[in-house]
């Protein structure tokens, strides 16, 4: 929530670019930094650094929701990330299920909520956990977890930054879906001239046109905008006005 006091009121596209720059600055590991997986590991590293955290981890749910892929800022954190999935409990599991952030500034007070996970993670030195769903409306892709070794709430700025890291992760994952990887993620949902509502309405329409998922629909819309050198908002406008369709004509 906007606690204006002491909060830097940035435009969202600016924050998006700031976070992308932080990820670019993140040192690459030798073997794994190609493609989406490497990008995700660097995103976790940059998030941990920017949020004064002991680590960050990211879980991507694979289509059927039964399998998951994780990335983390360090092997220790990756184990914590996988532990939640193994146990089926924890802030990230709840964040995914409830489709909203789960912010636990003091893990010691959350023992009853996650009777197995909380003590295990506490024992490994974690004192605060903040879990953010990776999602765009009903398109739910996974979650981003931030771990800290001292209790305390994220500041307003840090919360905004964490949410932006989650948004960048979503953009990267959606781009990975169609393989175009056009690298123009900046402010991808924030076309200042277009209407955000229209963008999501168009996404819903394209989902039905394709008979696919919402993530595929957004990937196709973004690929189309890129290929035709048009703004995403304009493309959405044409879709909602039914001037543009992604439906395959039926024979």
């Amino acid at each position, binding site marked *: *929530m*906007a*606690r*204006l*006091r002491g*909060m830097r*009121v*940035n*435009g*969202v596209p600016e*924050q998006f670019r700031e976070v992308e720059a932080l990820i670019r600055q993140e040192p690459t590991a030798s073997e794994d930094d190609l493609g989406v997986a490497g990008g995700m590991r660097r995103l976790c590293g940059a998030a941990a650094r920017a949020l004064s955290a002991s680590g960050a981890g990211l879980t991507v749910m694979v289509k059927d929701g039964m399998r998951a892929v994780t990335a983390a800022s360090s092997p220790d954190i990756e184990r914590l990330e996988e532990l939640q999935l193994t146990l089926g409990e924890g802030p990230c599991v709840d964040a995914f299920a*409830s*489709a*909203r*952030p*789960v*912010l636990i500034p003091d893990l010691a007070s959350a023992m009853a909520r996650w009777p197995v996970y909380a003590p295990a993670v506490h024992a490994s030195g974690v004192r605060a956990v903040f879990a953010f*769903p990776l*999602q*765009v*409306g*009903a*398109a739910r892709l996974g979650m981003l977890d931030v771990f800290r070794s001292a209790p305390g709430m994220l500041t*307003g700025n840090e*919360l*905004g930054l964490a*949410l*932006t890291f989650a948004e960048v992760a979503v953009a990267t994952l959606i781009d990975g879906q169609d393989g175009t990887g056009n690298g123009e993620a900046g402010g991808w949902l924030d076309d*200042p001239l277009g*209407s*955000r*509502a229209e*963008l*999501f*309405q*168009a*996404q*819903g*329409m*394209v*989902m*039905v*046109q394709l008979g696919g998922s*919402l993530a595929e629909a957004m990937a196709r819309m973004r690929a189309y905008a890129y290929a035709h050198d048009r703004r995403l908002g304009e493309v959405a406008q044409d879709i*909602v006005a039914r001037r543009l369709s992604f439906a395959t004509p039926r024979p």
Partner: protein
Amino acid sequence: MTTTISAQRLARVFVEVADTLVDEFDLIEFLQLLASRTADLLDASPVGLLLADQRGRLEFMAASDENVKLLELFQVQNQEGPCLDAFRSGTPVVNADLTEAKARWPRFAPRAVQAGFRSVHAFPLRLRAERIGAMNVFSASVGGRLAETDVQIVQALADVASIGLLQERAIKRGELLTEQLQGALNSRITIEQAKGALAQARGISVDEAFAVIRAHARNHNLRLGEVAQAVISDPDSIAEQLR
């Protein structure tokens, strides 16, 4: 627009708003109720509610009446407009004549006039120094001025809602408003996606699709977000069911 609101009607609305701040609370449903009841009190002037996200950006959350034109008017106010002014200053903007507001709001004012409105009001949602959003009231008539008593009443209603959101929730269930808000922002996106999916599946406009979704939610005592989620999960069969 009204000049006086009956005391009995008013009392009922305040009780209803307070009563919603209990268990099974849903932010969008609450804001929807607040917008609808305020619109009722003001003789059906369209009312919309915008909340600021974590990054200080005003986002449309609920309205007494929802269509493409109104949605655009609410959304443009993350850049300029009476809601942004009320949110930033913490004081209401009342009886702003839209025909003379082009210099003040070059993007917002012409669009509002084109949509058929003549005056506009905005009330901050705030508790002391804490500001969380704004309530927007439109009027189509030339003489659509809010009397001073009405201004006070609408601001009081906005204050009760803000106190409820900022205090009661946090204390009662240990749930943070940020969690609620981010969930509601995402729910709002789901509703837009569902409008599109249903519009495509049924061959209707997005406004018609929203009317169908809202009617279904009301008739079955479901939340808008729940119906929207169901539409996304299976647009074709839902399109049949909602026929």
